[in-house]
């Protein structure tokens, strides 16, 4: 099996993470923001896997499972919040929910 450099894996994770980040920053639609967060979480998980593969240890995969669990919980709560928001404000505009500004 031909070896893949660690850097390549990490750069892929980093790039995906940055793309997710850009998306969070530019989107106003709150569902898109949620999707972007998923991308970022996934990228972070990927980085763990790369690191785990680097050392040949299962810990990276364990971490991925934890992240996965968290992502699942986050999505379910996040979607519930989106539903509420949409019912309350009749919009998916994340900026509309700014009543907590100082």
């Amino acid at each position, binding site marked *: 099996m031909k070896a893949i450099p660690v850097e390549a894996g990490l*750069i892929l994770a980093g790039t995906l993470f940055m793309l997710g980040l850009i998306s969070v920053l530019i*989107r106003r639609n709150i569902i898109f923001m949620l999707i972007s967060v998923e991308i970022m979480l996934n990228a972070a998980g990927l980085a763990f896997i790369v690191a785990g593969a*680097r050392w040949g240890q299962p810990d990276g995969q364990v971490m991925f499972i934890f992240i996965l669990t968290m992502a699942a919980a986050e999505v379910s709560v996040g979607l519930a919040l989106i539903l509420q928001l949409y*019912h309350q404000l009749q919009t*998916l505009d994340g900026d509309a929910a700014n009543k907590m500004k100082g």
Partner: protein
Amino acid sequence: MELTFYVASAIAILSTIMVITRYNMVHALIYLIISFLAIAIVLFVLGAPFIAALEVIIYAGAIVVLIIFVIMMLNLREETVQQERSWLTKDIFIFPAILSAILLAEVIYIITSGEQIMLDQPSIDSSAVGMSLYGPYVIGVELCGILLMSGIVGAYHLGRQKKKIVHRFLEHAEQ
């Protein structure tokens, strides 16, 4: 194998770019599935077949389906796309892109500054992961259980369709 990795990586990046530039939410989600699948391949290549499977099942399957359900529940139509088109202009990209580029450059610099190490470890099978999970990480598993539990309760509570004011600041908006 190596080639597979690079191709899958390229597809993952490209499809993610497509995700973040779509106006239509369903299109974006389709691209997202592609991205997840590509990443699953990457994971497989990196010697984590079990995780690759989880990626496909939970990310590409469960999570995306959940989002699509919500989109259907909210009954979003063409006007959402129009709205998205008006929100997502070209210039809004500039500043976040610059910031992210800087960050990425720094990360890449940090990653590449060390000596090059090849990933040639054999794949770690699911039993090793399982041993680890229920061995040293058992506390984490318990905590995940609690998290999921509270996630379910929270989602149920928040998702109830009763017209209920969840926060005093929203009172005015409701009226």
